[in-house]
């Protein structure tokens, strides 16, 4: 990978989307801007790949690339790129049907790149203050994009997301301040006491009581953004009412970014022996989210809402796995996170075209997709098979690892875990049956779908289920060790 070496600058994954956002805000025309959006996504992904293969530079006071976040960055930029490809065909249809005007489209593209920029900053931040600012910025950009259709429901969803998201980031800031106060007593005043690499080095000397309170605030604050129950209320509405590419990015990426923030602070807690173990808190929140979301799946009448609740369910599983800790559970958590990002954004690509073809999001009005739109219908079936954890796809493997590591260490916890998985599985198949098979129902608009991103995601998930390259396994194992 010598050819990529000139791209191996951490600043590039921030500056490319930022420059693209500025450019897209100024340029008119759908064809040009949609292509530019894709090109910026591709360039950012190349820069991230270069980071992945280049040796890491020593961390600065603001930016950091280590083995943990490089996984997140690569995943983030990859899904960001494929979603921009999907988005190009999606917004083309929205322009034709008049749901989006050219002015809003320009705004949409600029915001899309700004969101990518903010998420990348949050991932490479070595400073807990900078990380917080980046997560806030990502929240703001998604809020305006959720409300972009300006219907009753879209505005209400954006408002709810806004208020709950603001409360979440406010709590996270209080937690960040408390971490600083704890660090200041040891490291001294100033910038150094917010630099994560310094914090983790000195964490064992911090006041444990202060860290405990700080972690509660951070878990609740960033947990709101992860969509953990009971702080999830914004998530289904935001997914259902915004443009579908945004649903894909929210589920596939933004939830991960918030979870990444929680993980960084969890590592800080783990480095201090006297502080309370963060694991049980995360295990509890994860299990509650999983079981709650599994039951909520049954009563969904809206197809995007259905998969939004499925995202809550999977974020619950991932939080549970990271809460269990240890090499195997962390490995399972990382793998599940990757697989969920790929599968769920893939499902949203399919759902986006399905809702355009049928002109509705109501599950009752969509039926017999495999007959009317075989490619879309069967992709949706494949996506649901993958997301509900059937072999031989990737999620089966990661869920299997989560369950088996739980059985080995805490068999009692495995009972509610397996129960939640089975309930969600049954609910998804119940809905899928009506959507994909039986008598064709609903309208039938022509749709120019872009299958490339959809098939790429499904192929990756299938490949991961059949064969994980040993290099990837070694890498994930190494990161699992870091997570502790």
């Amino acid at each position: 990978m010598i050819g990529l070496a000139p791209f191996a600058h951490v600043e590039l994954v921030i500056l490319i989307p930022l420059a693209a956002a500025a450019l897209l805000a100024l340029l008119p025309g759908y064809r040009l801007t949609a292509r530019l959006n894709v090109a910026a996504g591709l360039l950012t992904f190349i820069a991230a790949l270069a980071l992945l293969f280049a040796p890491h530079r020593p961390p600065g006071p603001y930016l950091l690339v280590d083995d943990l976040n490089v996984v997140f960055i690569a995943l983030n930029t990859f899904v960001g790129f494929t979603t921009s490809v999907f988005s190009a065909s999606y917004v083309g249809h929205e322009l034709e049907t008049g749901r989006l005007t050219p002015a809003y489209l320009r705004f949409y593209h600029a915001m899309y790149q700004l969101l990518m920029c903010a998420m990348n900053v949050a991932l490479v931040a070595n400073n807990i203050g900078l990380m917080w600012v980046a997560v806030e910025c990502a929240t703001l950009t998604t809020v305006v994009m959720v409300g972009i259709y300006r219907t009753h429901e879209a505005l209400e969803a954006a408002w709810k997301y806004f208020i709950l998201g603001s409360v979440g980031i406010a709590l996270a800031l209080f937690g960040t301040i408390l971490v600083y106060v704890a660090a200041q007593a040891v490291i001294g005043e100033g910038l150094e006491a917010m630099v994560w690499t310094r914090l983790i080095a000195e964490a064992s000397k911090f006041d444990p009581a202060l860290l405990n309170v700080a972690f509660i605030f951070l878990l609740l604050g960033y947990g709101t953004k992860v969509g953990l129950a009971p702080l999830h209320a914004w998530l289904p509405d935001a997914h259902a009412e915004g443009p579908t590419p945004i649903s894909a990015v929210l589920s596939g990426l933004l939830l991960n970014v918030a979870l990444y923030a929680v993980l960084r602070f969890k590592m800080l807690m783990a480095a201090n022996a006297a502080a309370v173990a963060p694991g049980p808190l995360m295990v509890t929140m994860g299990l509650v989210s999983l079981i709650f979301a599994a039951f909520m799946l049954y009563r969904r009448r809206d197809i995007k809402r259905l998969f939004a609740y499925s995202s809550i369910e999977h974020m619950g599983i991932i939080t549970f796995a990271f809460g269990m800790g240890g090499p195997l559970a962390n490995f399972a958590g990382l793998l599940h996170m990757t697989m969920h990002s790929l599968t769920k954004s893939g499902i949203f690509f399919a759902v986006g075209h399905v809702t355009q073809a049928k002109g509705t999001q109501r599950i009752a009005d969509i039926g017999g997709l495999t007959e009317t739109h075989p490619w879309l219908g069967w992709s949706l079936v494949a996506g649901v098979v993958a997301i509900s954890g059937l072999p031989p796809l990737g999620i089966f493997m990661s869920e299997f690892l989560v369950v088996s590591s739980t059985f080995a260490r805490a068999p009692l916890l495995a009972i509610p875990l397996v129960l939640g998985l089975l309930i969600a599985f049954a609910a998804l198949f119940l809905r899928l049956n009506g959507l994909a098979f039986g008598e064709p129902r609903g309208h039938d608009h022509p749709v120019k779908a872009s299958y490339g991103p959809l098939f790429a995601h499904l192929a990756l998930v299938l490949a991961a289920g059949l064969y994980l390259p040993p290099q990837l396994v070694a890498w994930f194992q190494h990161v699992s060790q870091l997570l502790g």
Partner: protein
Amino acid sequence: MPNLAFDTAHLLAGGLVLVSFVLLYQDRLTALLNVYALHALVLALAVAWQANIQNAPHLYVTAALALGFKAVIIPLALRRIIERLGIHREIEAVVGIGPTMLAGMALVALSMVVMLRVTVAAAPIAREDLAFALAVVLLGLLIMVTRRNAVSQVVGFMSLENGLILAATGAKGMPLVVEISVAFSILIAFIVIGIFLFRIRERFDTVDVVALDQFRGERR
């Protein structure tokens, strides 16, 4: 005189908690906005005092922002919005004033117990400031959950945010405080512009969020 420095900081931070309580029992929107302006004024004084005793001139920027933006511009803008929307009427609270005040007292007691106990090692000024700041944050949350009206929820959020700025300035030498306060001001400006641009009243015929809830959930 170190005692004067400490006592004044203590007084101003305590004053902020007191004004938060006054916010809790307002039952008219215009009065609520007036009290919020007072809240921001007290915050500006507290931050300016911290800038003085910490010899941190950059904190004056945060203080000036609190004074100019939060104590003057935002209340004026919100007042214009409620006049345009014609909602001077009483605020509908979910819970009565009595229970709300009791809950508020319990929250203040909780934040004192929690924060004073865990910050034994911190400097006394930071310690008191953090305890008061948490009280202001929790009271802000209480305002948000006990009000149904969108504008008063925003006021609750803004008072919560004032508590955070108090905490950030109280933590001595914390970097990025000014940047964070600017980021928060942008956030608040977004919220206010959001109410105005989305014309929640026109769209929903009320800024009462119960009405928003009717659109919630599945489309039937």
